[in-house]
Structures are given as C-alpha cells and as structure tokens.
C-alpha cells in the first residue's frame, strides 16, 4: 500500500521502527501518523462505535472527526491519524471511551 515512486512527490520518511498493534508486531516509519502505518499494514478498522459496535476507520485524517481514537501506551482516546509513531509504541483498539487513569 506504500507508494514507492511518485511522478510529482518525494516522500521523506524517518527510520523504520517496530511497534505493536493489539499484541501483533508491525513496522512503520518513525514520525508518520500511527494510522498511516496501520493502513500501510492493511489495518483499516481502528475502533468501534459505542452503541452498536460498528467498525470505524479514519475519516478526516486531520484530527478533526474522532473516528480514529485508539489507546496508545495506555493512554486512551488518542487521535492516531495525527499522533506520530515512535519505536516500541503499544497501540490497542479500545472498547468504548477508554479508561482515563
């Protein structure tokens, strides 16, 4: 899913890092949004709606719509479409609104 060569753009990526998604080890580039790394790995469902549990993915990709909230390193309701990936991050789908500690 990653674009290797583009007719107009050149993509400057940080170093390749590993992180976990619900326990599964994945790779991405440091500094890109977590949602981009997940999407590149084929993961489109990021959360579930609170009432009916319907799958939700990102929608606006710019941090404005709340469709992409996940728990990152234990912190709930993180907007993964803008949150930057760091090595060793623990990304988890959360149930409902997550728990604030």
């Amino acid at each position, binding site marked *: 899913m990653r674009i290797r*060569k583009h007719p107009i753009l050149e993509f400057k990526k940080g170093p390749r890092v590993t992180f976990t998604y619900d326990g599964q080890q994945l790779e991405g580039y440091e500094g890109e949004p977590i949602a981009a790394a997940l999407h590149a790995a084929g993961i489109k469902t990021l959360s579930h709606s609170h009432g009916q549990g319907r799958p939700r993915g990102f929608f606006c990709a710019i941090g404005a719509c709340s469709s992409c909230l996940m728990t990152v390193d234990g912190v709930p309701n993180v907007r993964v479409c803008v949150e930057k990936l760091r090595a060793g991050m623990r990304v988890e789908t959360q149930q409902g609104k997550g728990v604030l500690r």
Partner: protein
Amino acid sequence: MLKSTGIPTPADLAQVYPDKQRLERGPVAIIECFQSIPCNPCATACPRGAILPFADINDRPQLDAEKCNGCGLCVVNCPGLAIFVVDMAYSEKEALLKMPYEFLPLPQPGAVVTALNRAGQAVGTGTVIRVQSPPAFERTALIHLAVAKDLAHEVRNIKVEDETDEAR
C-alpha cells in the same frame, strides 16, 4: 455536451483548431480550453507572444497561429494540461503530437505505446520519439508521440506498460 461529459465535441474543437492550411504547414498549439475561468499562465509562458496577453484574467486564450512554432512551453505550463501541439508536416504518413504527461512510468524514446482518445479509449498505437522532462518543466513531461495522421486529432493520452512495477 462538454459540461456533462468532460469531453469536447467536434463543435467545441472547431472553435480552437487552426485552419487546415496552417495545420499542414507545421507544428501548432491546439488550446483545448473551453471555459471562462480565472487563469492565464499559457499567455505568460509563450516566448513568442503567440498566445495573446489577456485583457481580463477570465478570458479564454486566443492563439495567433502565425506566431506559434509549436515549441510546447504552453503545454507544460497550462494548469489544466489542456494544450497539445500537432505537427501534420512531421512525415508523409505520420503526425507528431506533443502532449503533457504526469504519470509513472515515463515511456522510453522508441517505445510503442497505446494511444488513447479524449474518452480514454484505445484507438491505436503511437511511437514515442522524445520525452522532455527538464527541471524547468517541474515534473510535467512533454512527450513527443508519432501517430498515424488520421489519429492526430483524436489521440490525447497514452498508456505505458508498467513492466518494472514502477508506479506501484
């Protein structure tokens, strides 16, 4: 109708095509721009003043076909990628088209590619004669494509085989 299909009709094209005599003399720009929008880089790009300076930025471009030598600078500067150069004097059997191209892979000179019409349909093949992509063109390549003369007014795009999977 252009407004619902996005494809100019023969009547639309007749408005912008130079006459047959001029076409047969050599390369000339065909400005397939049919809508009054605020835009004038074509006039600014032409080094010969063949595209007349705009009185109002919303004017449609006017070409002085006598001044035009088909250099192609307007082709790569048009934000709408709406200008093409047609040279009916290229050879006995073929016309040379110059068209803008912003996809990968870029074809190699000598390559035979599928020639597409304004609706994206394959209508034949063309031979790539030259690909100009200098830094000044800012990644809009100018493709020189030789096609059979009877395709010269139909072909406006190409399809390049992606053997190296470059676009992926």
